[in-house]
């Protein structure tokens, strides 16, 4: 090799890469714009949008804002979202600091239990709360029997807001625990050497650095509060308390004769605008978060603060919180599923029965719901991960002129409430000729779920992608590989763990999803969540609990296997 003959350069097509960039961008844009365009159109039409004689009008908005009770509904929604956020942030952040950074007994186990609620839908949580703490709930009745007093009323605006807040606290906990445990240990060490006690260093250095995590999760919880369906439906429905989402749900689905398309469209646009503004606000608030970025990749983790004699006091408080807001809620579902009638007045083993499960497994529709949920989650997880990784590669690792725009479009579904995504796809399939084909099939559900959760998958893949140094791509390009060869041969193999994590996260989100499906499913394409809502509306609490139990068991099995077999990172 002393004589270097001029080697010939590798042949590669530049056109191939360009074609991929455009295809990915156009498909993403269509899928994201797809459900939004018909909603906006419908909001300004005086007739259902599939009717040819429909004409433009602003009347829907006038009706929306003048209709009796609409002001009430908006106020309810705002109050509900604010309380949800405050309660969730308060409990979530305090738990994060105590569990993450003190020598609390059993902190490992408590940390695990604290994230359980993230794996199930708030429909399941709502039902668990209802079973235990509702007007004739197990614990409610037990307290009543013991004290003779009616201890609480969750069928009120404040009551359901607190339930929602406690259900969302795990999300705040998850965001904050990352911030407090991954903080650079040297920052606290510096405070210690400047004369601060361990507790003082924790409270004055690390806790303020939780601010970006707090801001981020606070806005997230606020948005979730605004778009939440299950809890307002279960707790507000019986006493006639409506939020924007339950209003849309009632108008869209339950309206006695024919649903009022115009009002639904206008309401959806209003919700879209509110959520969009909030997500924009979140971006603004996070802008200067560089102030709080700590050195990453440090091997040293911050040490635990010794609580001393307060250790067991803290344990009692934390254990009570976990027991009453998480363990009891899950236990309520399991117990209700396995008895004929749940009451503290009769020992529950005397009422044990398999009838609820037998009912589920005797009806083809219910079995189909379970199978559909598994198939949708599995296929959707794979399709979704493939879409997300393509988008992320073009957005983050190409020279495509519109890569920033692509990322922006792909992340837009963050501001797309599930109920709107579902409604939008519903309108799209009746409006766009040819799409009728997939109407009422599981494919429309997969499409809607994938679009809605692109940002979740992106959140799992983008950070891993930025960990892979760009010199590795550049080295491949200079060695003779074009863009597509480079990303498939160099980047994708290195990204494998993140792909598994993205798949697992999408599976879990699809499996627990119900809001997006309520306008889209038909007999044959029902899923666990939609069937639960149906059964709940009929008052069949036993079978609802049995379905919820089955959902929890499948989720738990999946999480266990995903962690073991795929090494997927799911929530930490």
């Amino acid at each position, binding site marked *: *090799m*002393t004589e*270097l*003959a*001029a*080697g*010939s*350069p*590798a*042949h*590669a097509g*530049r056109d191939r890469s360009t074609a991929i960039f455009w295809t990915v961008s156009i498909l993403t844009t269509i899928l994201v714009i797809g459900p939004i365009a018909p909603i906006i159109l419908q909001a300004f039409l005086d007739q259902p949008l599939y009717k040819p004689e429909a004409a433009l009008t602003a009347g829907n908005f006038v009706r929306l804002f003048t209709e009796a009770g609409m002001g009430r509904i908006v106020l309810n929604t705002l109050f509900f979202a604010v309380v949800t956020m405050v309660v969730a942030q308060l409990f979530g952040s305090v738990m994060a600091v105590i569990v993450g950074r003190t020598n609390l007994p059993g902190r490992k186990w408590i940390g695990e239990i604290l994230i359980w609620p993230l794996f199930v839908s708030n429909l399941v949580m709502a039902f668990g709360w209802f079973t235990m703490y509702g007007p004739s709930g197990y614990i409610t009745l037990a307290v009543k029997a013991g004290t003779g007093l009616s201890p609480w009323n969750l069928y009120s605006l404040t009551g359901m807001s607190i339930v929602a807040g406690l259900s969302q606290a795990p999300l705040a906990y998850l965001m904050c625990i990352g911030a407090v445990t991954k903080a650079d240990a040297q920052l606290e060490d510096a405070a210690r050497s400047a004369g601060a006690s361990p507790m003082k260093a924790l409270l004055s250095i690390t806790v303020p650095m939780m601010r970006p995590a707090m801001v981020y999760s606070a806005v997230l919880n606020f948005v979730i509060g605004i778009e939440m369906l299950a809890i307002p439906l279960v707790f507000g429905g019986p006493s006639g308390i409506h939020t924007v989402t339950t209003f849309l749900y009632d108008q869209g689905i339950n309206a006695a004769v024919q649903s009022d398309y115009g009002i639904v469209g206008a309401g959806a646009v209003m919700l879209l605008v509110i959520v969009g503004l909030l997500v924009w606000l979140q971006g603004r608030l996070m802008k200067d978060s560089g102030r709080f970025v700590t050195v990453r990749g440090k091997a040293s983790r911050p040490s635990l603060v010794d609580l001393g004699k307060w250790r067991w006091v803290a344990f009692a408080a934390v254990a009570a919180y976990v027991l009453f807001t998480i363990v009891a809620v899950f236990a309520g579902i399991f117990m209700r599923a396995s008895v004929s009638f749940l009451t503290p007045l009769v020992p529950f083993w005397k009422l044990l029965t398999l009838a609820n499960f037998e009912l589920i497994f005797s009806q083809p529709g219910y079995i189909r719901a379970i199978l559909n949920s598994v198939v949708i989650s599995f296929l959707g997880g794979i399709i979704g991960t493939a879409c997300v990784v393509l988008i992320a590669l073009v957005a983050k690792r190409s020279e495509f002129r519109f890569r920033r725009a692509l990322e922006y479009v792909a992340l837009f579904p963050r501001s797309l409430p599930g109920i709107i995504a579902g409604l939008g796809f519903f309108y799209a399939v009746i409006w766009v000729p040819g799409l009728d084909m997939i109407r009422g099939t599981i494919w429309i559900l997969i499409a809607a779920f994938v679009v809605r959760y692109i940002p979740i998958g992106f959140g799992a893949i983008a950070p891993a992608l930025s960990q892979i*140094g760009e*010199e*590795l791509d*550049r*080295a*491949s*390009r*200079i*060695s*003779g*590989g*074009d863009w597509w*060869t480079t990303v498939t*041969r*160099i980047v994708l*193999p*290195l990204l494998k763990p993140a792909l598994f994590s993205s798949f697992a996260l999408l599976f879990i989100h699809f499996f627990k999803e119900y809001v997006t499906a309520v306008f889209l499913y038909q007999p044959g394409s029902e899923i666990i969540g939609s069937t639960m809502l149906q059964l709940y509306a009929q008052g069949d609490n036993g079978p609802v609990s049995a379905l919820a139990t089955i959902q929890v068991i499948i989720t738990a099995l999946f999480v266990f296997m995903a962690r073991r077999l795929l090494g997927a990172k799911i929530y930490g």
Partner: protein
Amino acid sequence: MADLILDDLSISYGSYKAVSNVSLTIPKGEFLTLLGPSGCGKSTTLFAISGLNHATSGAIRMGERVLFDGRSGTVVPPEQRNIGLVFQSYALWPHMSVAQNLAYPLKLRKIGRAEQDERIREALELVEMGRFAERYPFELSGGQQQRVALARALVYRPGLLLLDEPLSNLDAKLRERARVWLRELQERLGVTTVYVTHDQAEALAVSDRIAVMDTGRIRQLGTPKEIYETPADAFVADFIGSSNFLTGTVVGGSDGAASVRLDDRTVIRAKVGAGGTGENVVVAVRPERLQIVGGAGDNVVQATVQGGAYLGSVYQYELVGAGSTFRVQTSREIADSQVFVYVPPEASTLFSAQSRPQA
């Protein structure tokens, strides 16, 4: 293999001009170094040659082959340029073994299995890494990774080798050994090489020619000896060998020499530098060329010792005299606080005061 030609190359990012009107011809087989402080545009130029950066205007050619032409809009993508590039971080693909790293560019060139193996073996022998073919990058030391990166850049016999500070992640001792070895290898292969570094000692040791760059421009292009002995301006004089600068005004002179009145009114003689002069000038002189003498005389200035440091092979003192602060290196320790310093006229170069780099 052919000459590499940069023709009036400019690279802008928005309104910021990273590289301005650089023209260079690098004959085949030459080892050329782009040398300059960080942010001078040397790596930007290197990556524009590789095609990984986009130049804004001008042209890059390898012999007859146009790699980039701003006027006609020709941009050959990096994968079609057939250039070898060694990255500062080595950029070895962590999921591939050493042999797989080397095989990758060969597979892309559709080279047969047997020849692949042969070329990989040769390239690894060349960098003395033959025994490590089956190892993965994380199992190698920094020096070994650097050798593998070089082998990977050479295995497909590129027409040009680009090196982006390849030694900067090695420790000082290894760095010195590696640069000797690198130069020997390059001479043996005769591959045209462009090397980027901010380390002047490294540049002087390995290069056929050096292009000293600052704020996107080439300040001086020449052999290591030319650059060191006859810097073109005060910037080069300061960057290579960190000269002292004595400020003063020209009071007369002829034949490329001038008399300068320093700020304390002492008059000394010095060569006139290439950059031309004005009334206000600086006299550049390297610390190791100044001599401590017994008393006043021609070209001698008086100075006060401010402080000193023992550097091992020499002593270095900081002095104040002739209206300036300057350093002197001597083999002997200075005991007095007042000294006389001889400024050799042949080692002193005059530059206009404007060209003096801002500290």
